[in-house]
């Protein structure tokens, strides 16, 4: 596989810490947009991010980020920003210096570095407290100043390890908006998170991990389609729930059609969603029922996570 200069490519990557498995035989390539790494603690998300950014070396395999490897650090780290989970800072540093000095190491002169520092502080909502010592920051502020440092040089690839941890709802919403705006500019944003509702809302694709293995990868819908063991759930709100339920039962692939307590909604579990949608078109065009709303009920990261990994974190 030739590394694409827009993609992030993992080729047969494994990492062992002595005899302990970090990740094993990881193969995927990522397009620009927001990609979420999802998995329980110890599943290998942070290992994958550390491998991607060269903090650790793969035991085997290769990683290319926009056609670059960490063996070209000058070019590589101009393109990559990494907000790690390590909640530690150089002793005695303040928020401004924490962002300013790494920018000087990028080769920016004083004026450029100061401008980029102020811009990053503004974007992360830390401008007011930038001159205070980081040691006096709250957990959320420390998280945001690390985020500010990782975006300050305008990287094309932003890697964020649990970036929403410790943030209050307002800061969380602002951070998510920031990630989305970065992704809309054609950048890569790679996020690991336990907050599945938010992952689901912002991700273009997911990489599901368990015990060091990638168990599924792709756009959420595609991944859901691949989980054939679990019938898809579709919620239909319509004028005549009973009629729709009986029509649905005539299809072989429909496992269950349950009329909900409001009497207006049917929850259908089917092994072939496409066929069910065709039926729905037919009953609507035939005037049998009037449909108010149709929505997949388990077409989200949370459900996929439950189906593939299980609530205890072991592969289902």
């Amino acid at each position, binding site marked *: 596989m030739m590394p694409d200069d827009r993609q992030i490519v993992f080729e047969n990557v494994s990492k062992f*810490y002595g005899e302990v498995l970090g990740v094993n035989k990881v193969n995927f390539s990522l397009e620009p947009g927001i990609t979420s790494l999802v998995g329980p603690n110890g599943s290998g998300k942070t290992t994958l991010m*550390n491998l991607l*950014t*060269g*903090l*650790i*070396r793969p035991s085997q395999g290769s990683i290319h980020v926009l056609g670059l490897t960490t063996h070209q*650090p*000058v*070019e*590589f*780290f*101009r393109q*990559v*920003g*990494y907000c*790690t989970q*390590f909640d*530690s*800072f*150089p*002793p*005695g540093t303040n928020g401004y210096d924490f962002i300013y*000095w*790494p920018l*000087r*190491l*990028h*080769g920016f002169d004083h004026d450029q570095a100061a401008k980029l520092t102020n811009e990053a502080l503004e974007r992360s909502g830390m401008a007011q407290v930038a001159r205070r010592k980081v040691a006096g920051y709250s957990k959320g502020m420390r998280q945001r100043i690390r985020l500010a440092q990782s975006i300050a040089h305008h990287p094309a690839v932003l890697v964020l390890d649990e970036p929403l941890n410790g943030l209050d709802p307002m800061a969380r919403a602002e951070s998510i908006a920031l990630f989305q705006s970065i992704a809309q500019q054609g950048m890569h944003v790679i996020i690991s998170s336990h907050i599945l509702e938010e992952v689901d809302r912002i991700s273009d694709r997911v990489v599901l991990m368990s015990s060091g293995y990638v168990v599924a990868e792709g756009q959420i819908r595609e991944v859901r389609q691949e989980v054939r063991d679990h019938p898809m759930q579709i919620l239909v709100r319509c004028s005549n729930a009973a009629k729709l339920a009986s029509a649905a039962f005539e299809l072989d692939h429909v496992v269950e059609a349950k009329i909900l307590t409001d009497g207006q909604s049917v929850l259908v579990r089917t092994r072939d969603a496409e066929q069910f949608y065709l039926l729905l078109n037919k009953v609507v065009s035939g005037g049998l029922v009037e449909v108010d709303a149709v929505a997949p009920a388990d077409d989200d990261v949370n459900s996929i996570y439950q189906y593939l990994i299980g609530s205890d974190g072991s592969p289902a």
Partner: protein
Amino acid sequence: MSVQESITRAQRTLKEQPWQLYASQISVLVRNGVRRNLFTRRRVWVYLLALIPVLILVTHNIVSRYNVETLSLQNETEVLAGIIQLYYFRLGIFFACMGIFTWLFRGEMVERTLHYQFLVPVRKEVLVVGKFLAGAIISVALFEAAVFACFYLTYSRFGSAGRFYVFDGPGLSQLGSYLLVTALACLGYGAVFLALSLLFKNPIIPGAMLMGWEAIAPIFPAWAQRLSVTFYLKHLCPVTLPVDGPMAIFTVVAEPVSPFVAVSGLLCLTIAILVLSCFLIHRIEITYTAE
């Protein structure tokens, strides 16, 4: 590939390097390294190591200020030589460099901040050089100041005789030699301890072994002595110590070498160890939990 092609390729590679960027990165690393390692409470013991002889000499000057005539210039010159050769080179600079240079990388591992250095567009070789220079500036500045203070305190109490010894006698040349040897000791030990910190998680035991090696190196063959820092330092010291008993081993000069060979030899040893460190840094991974 022929030799000519290899040389042409190497020249092209060298030409393509962004040397200006490397220089600016090194200056930033040195500035941050000095600020972080010099002005910190953690370094108080290093200041003490440098200042102990100075404090002793100050006390000695106060105690003996009314009977200066009993002091001999030659005797005090030998005492100063003993302080510098037996205390500073064997203990003070050795342990201070151990503290300063092993902390440059290992300390950042302990504080869990090394990843910030690994996530910037800086070649790891540049990082090694920048950090080494920061450590060198700290140790050289500290111990040159201490040696200068010892020299001043030794000769200032002799009044005009002391001034004559310094400015019209061998004093200034001896001071120059001591300052040169102090700087070389800091560079040599610094490079060794930097490399040890990249090789071992706990460099204390290899540091103790190095101290033993430095002590017994004079009894080994000439080629083996060249792998010791003190081998080069001893040849540059302007005053020979008249030491008897077991301490005499520290003053053995097995094979005399010229000052040029001693200076260039130590600098070559330092550069060789730094090149080794540039290879070793590539083995470092950020796994703080293993520290």
